[in-house]
């Protein structure tokens, strides 16, 4: 109320100077019912971000912060994302979401360290944290100059987050093609150039990025990979996946935990929206670096602007979209694999039980697309079975891919498939070849309690 009048006395003047006229606009828009105290604690002065978003001016800085951190912590604890014996790798792009993820993981680690030092028997170790940055300048040569500065900035940001000390791994995206950096870069560029669809190229880059993160995580002894994906990001993903005909595999991508990878992926910011993330960065002066991407004109960009438009029409639209997708049945790998680790505290085990979703055993799949690692629908993978005995690399590759990758990433001309296959990282090709072996191993895993012999020979 006070802020609606020009003579506001509650200290808004200073802020108004900072934000230009925005504070006033928001008040006039009627979107904010300005109270002079925080609606949560009813004592502190509420924060006005002046970003035109919803819920502006309702919470004080502390309550706002606690709320966002609370969502993060709930996600972490209820899915046993981080336990004392874990070694966690945080993927940091320099952007706001991953900056907040890094900050929150750091804060958890500090707390764990304090508890450790305060405890008498020191039985619970403090989990380790590392940071990975993927250098994509091989894909965008124009980035090269800015990249040096960006990496310097990232080094100092990570260094500032100690103690506890955190290793930083800067990984060139082409590293998945081998250790010879020149040859790897050459193959990477050739591979990207051979994808003619703009959206396919962008998506392939994302898949390669994930492969490099997986590689650096497993080579350096990490057992968890934390990504900063927030609700808004996932909302766009829900729609892009739908538009690309990836409805079947969609539910695998938007859960808190995705353990289809060697190192399970975790999304602790899944329940926070972009606006909260940016507000938090502003509030806590968390600096970010935006690397200028090349202009995008594909499906992904079209979807992003569509979501932005929807969000304008209804500020909770992103949440609704993700909530819809969350009602789809997740996959068996959408939880941290059970271990005998006695380090998992009893309380965590209990919480896990409480939050664990029910899995529909009949709906599990066993085959994954070698390029995007999406689980394959039976109708997609039926080709795989008809190709029994046929081991030509190109046919196997085509048959093993999901329909979306076939269309937007594989060459349309079947005769150039072999060449394309030769450019792919070894990891992807071997996955295509061993698709069937893997699925056999998975089936075996599911029935092992009923098998009398331990080895494959029983078959």
């Amino acid at each position, binding site marked *: 109320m006070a802020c609606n009048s020009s003579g506001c006395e509650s200290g808004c003047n200073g802020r108004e100077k900072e934000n230009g006229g925005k504070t006033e606009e928001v008040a006039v828009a*009627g979107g904010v019912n300005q109270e002079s105290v925080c609606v949560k604690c009813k004592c502190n002065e509420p924060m006005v971000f002046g970003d035109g978003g919803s819920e502006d001016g309702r919470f004080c800085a502390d309550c706002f912060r606690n709320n966002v951190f609370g969502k993060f912590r709930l996600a972490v604890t209820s899915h046993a994302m981080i336990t004392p014996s874990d070694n966690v790798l945080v993927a940091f792009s320099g952007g706001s979401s991953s900056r907040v993820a890094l900050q929150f993981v750091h804060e958890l680690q500090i707390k764990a360290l304090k508890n450790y030092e305060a405890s008498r028997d020191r039985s619970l170790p403090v989990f380790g944290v590392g940071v990975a940055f993927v250098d994509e300048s091989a894909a965008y040569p124009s980035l090269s100059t800015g990249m040096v500065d960006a990496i310097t900035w990232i080094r100092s940001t990570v260094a500032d987050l100690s103690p506890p000390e955190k290793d930083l791994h800067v990984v060139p995206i082409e590293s998945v093609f081998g250790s010879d950096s020149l040859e790897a870069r050459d193959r990477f560029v050739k591979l990207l150039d051979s994808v003619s*669809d703009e959206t396919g190229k962008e998506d392939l880059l994302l898949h390669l990025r994930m492969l490099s993160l997986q590689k650096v995580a497993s080579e350096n002894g990490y057992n968890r990979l934390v990504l900063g994906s927030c609700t808004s990001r996932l909302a766009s993903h829900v729609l892009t996946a739908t*538009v690309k005909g990836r409805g*079947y595999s969609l*539910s695998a991508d938007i859960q808190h935990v995705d353990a289809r990878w060697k190192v399970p992926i975790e999304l602790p910011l899944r329940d926070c929206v972009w606006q909260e993330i940016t507000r938090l960065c502003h509030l806590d002066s968390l600096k970010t670096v935006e690397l200028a991407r090349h202009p995008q004109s594909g499906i992904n960009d*079209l979807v992003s602007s569509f979501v932005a*438009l929807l969000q*304008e029409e209804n500020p909770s639209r992103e949440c*609704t979209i993700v909530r819809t997708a969350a009602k789809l*049945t997740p996959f068996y790998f959408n939880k941290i694999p059970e271990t005998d680790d006695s380090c998992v505290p009893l309380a965590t085990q209990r919480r896990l039980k409480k939050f664990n979703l029910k899995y529909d055993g009949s709906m599990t799949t066993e085959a994954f697309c070698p390029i995007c690692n999406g689980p394959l629908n039976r109708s997609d993978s039926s080709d795989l079975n008809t190709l029994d005995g046929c081991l030509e690399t190109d046919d196997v590759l085509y048959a093993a891919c999901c329909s979306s990758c076939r269309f937007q990433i594989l060459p349309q001309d079947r005769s150039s498939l072999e060449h394309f296959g030769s450019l792919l990282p070894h990891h992807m090709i071997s996955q295509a070849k061993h698709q069937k072996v893997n699925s056999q191993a998975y089936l075996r895993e599911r029935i092992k309690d009923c098998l009398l012999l331990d080895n494959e020979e029983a078959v």
Partner: protein
Amino acid sequence: MEAGEAKSKKAGGPRLCCICNQRRPVLKRPKTLQQICRECFYEVFEEEIHQVIVVNRLFKSGERVAIGASGGKDSTVLAYVLSELNRRHSYGLDLFLLSIDEGITGYRDDSLETVKRNELQYGLPLQILSYKDLYGWTMDEIVKMIGLKNNCTFCGVFRRQALDRGAALLKVDKLVTGHNADDIAETVLLNILRGDIARLSRCTSITTGEDGPIPRCKPFKYTYEKEIVMYAYFKKLDYFSTECIYSPNAYRGFAREFIKDLERLRPRAILDIIKSGEDFRIATTTKMPEQGTCERCGYISSQKWCKACVLLEGLNRGLPKMGIGRARGGINGDHTRETKAGSKSIETKQCGSLDF
């Protein structure tokens, strides 16, 4: 490749239809961007629909099938193609056109005239049922009663039920509608945006209401709107462009515009959205929500009375506001942004063909 154009460019010399390789191409097929001749277009267009009918076993020989006919392009092309395929492939169907006369002066008159001409042109019998027959009220009478403001509630609810009620009245085995691939893709998106998982699981079914009295099916499920327009254009089919005059704001919604943008970028996206809709992993328990029937009229309803009966009761008792939900508009938009955000809906039409 976003567009499949490269193929046709490779061939040097005078360009030929890339299907028959004989005639000059006259159009770029919206679904595939192939450049083809008119004859081949008719051929692939009709054959695709025939395949959809055969593969999904939409009809059985001897069935009495009502084609929901509004006089608009979708149902006109549907009537034309179905009667053609019925003859050509001896489906053995007893086809007829079923039209609903809402009783809106000057609106249905023209479209009904179109349907009447179609009756002669395609040799299909026509049955017209009026709102008066079905509900005891015409739309004009309703508008007189309640004013222009809330009529779209009636429009939508009554229209949704009209065909089913009419089909039941005429004892048909099946009802077919002209919903096309664009409509279905739009519905998939809208159900995601609204969080309606139950509808999301049902909306891509080619046949619905199989457990009810009259199953409905959509032979155009995979047919692009653009191709339907193209077919009507080249065949010079006689259709009426319908817009509900009581809904001056029946503008194209966000979702529809988005789909059009997508189609420009990647024609196959429409089919991909439908594929996603079919493939979503939805637990079987979600798929079948409890669905009772209206105590008054027997139409499917989750409440004691169906929406139409509630509205009718209100009209008959002189309380027309009964059953009208929260008012539309007034979205709490940020006025500093472009105003279009506030005045647009995410849906195509508030009372449009989607629910027809």
